């Protein structure tokens, strides 16, 4: 069964550094998402992406964040200058045109 994959599984970075989290959505999916989950808290929506543009973003998704689909298979989340509070699990999700969003295993981002 096709699945969403994410790399790396764990990223450790220094505050102020740039990080890029990578996702490979399921191949025939059309909608792409990033969510984050701070340890022990609920999953929060960051951004949705459709037809090569952001369709919706949350208040969390400020100018420090950007997303890109550089080719036909990858979907990336970039944080330009990481802060301590960016430490979280970041989940990529994708869906075709039905309701179901399929989540990847996540990238644990630790900002020191």
């Amino acid at each position, binding site marked *: 069964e096709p699945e*969403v994959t994410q790399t790396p599984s764990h990223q450790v970075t220094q505050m102020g550094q740039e990080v890029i989290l990578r996702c490979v959505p399921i191949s025939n999916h059309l*909608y792409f*998402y990033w*969510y984050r989950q701070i340890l022990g*808290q*609920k*999953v*929060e*929506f960051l951004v*949705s*992406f*459709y*037809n090569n*543009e952001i*369709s*919706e973003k*949350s208040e969390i998704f400020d100018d420090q964040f950007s997303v890109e689909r550089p080719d036909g298979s990858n979907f990336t989340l970039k944080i330009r200058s990481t802060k301590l509070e960016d430490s979280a699990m970041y*989940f990529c999700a994708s*869906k075709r045109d039905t*309701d*179901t*969003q*399929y*989540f*990847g*295993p*996540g990238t644990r981002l630790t900002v020191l």
Partner: protein
Amino acid sequence: QQQVKQSPQSLIVQKGGISIINCAYENTAFDYFPWYQQFPGKGPALLIAIRPDVSEKKEGRFTISFNKSAKQFSLHIMDSQPGDSATYFCAAGSNGAFIGRKAAGNKLTFGGGTRVLVKP
């Protein structure tokens, strides 16, 4: 208005028992209500989902009950097993929504999660 409230925060049930988790929402634009199961260190996995045109949906040991007028929905896990020990999240989305002329993409708003422990 975008919040989804979930209770209880944690639940301990004996093997074979019934686990019941409740969620409430306010935004009447929500029209898709999935439940996700998450094991430690893993991403959320869709368990079962319902649309508001039905009041109940059952898949195996998992049942969603939906009360549109009360804006509440719940997950029942029958015959709970130790392997069901996980965190369960309810969520809500509005499919087909638009922001301006752009498809909004049906973001999911999650509840706070319920940690379920099934004792053998």
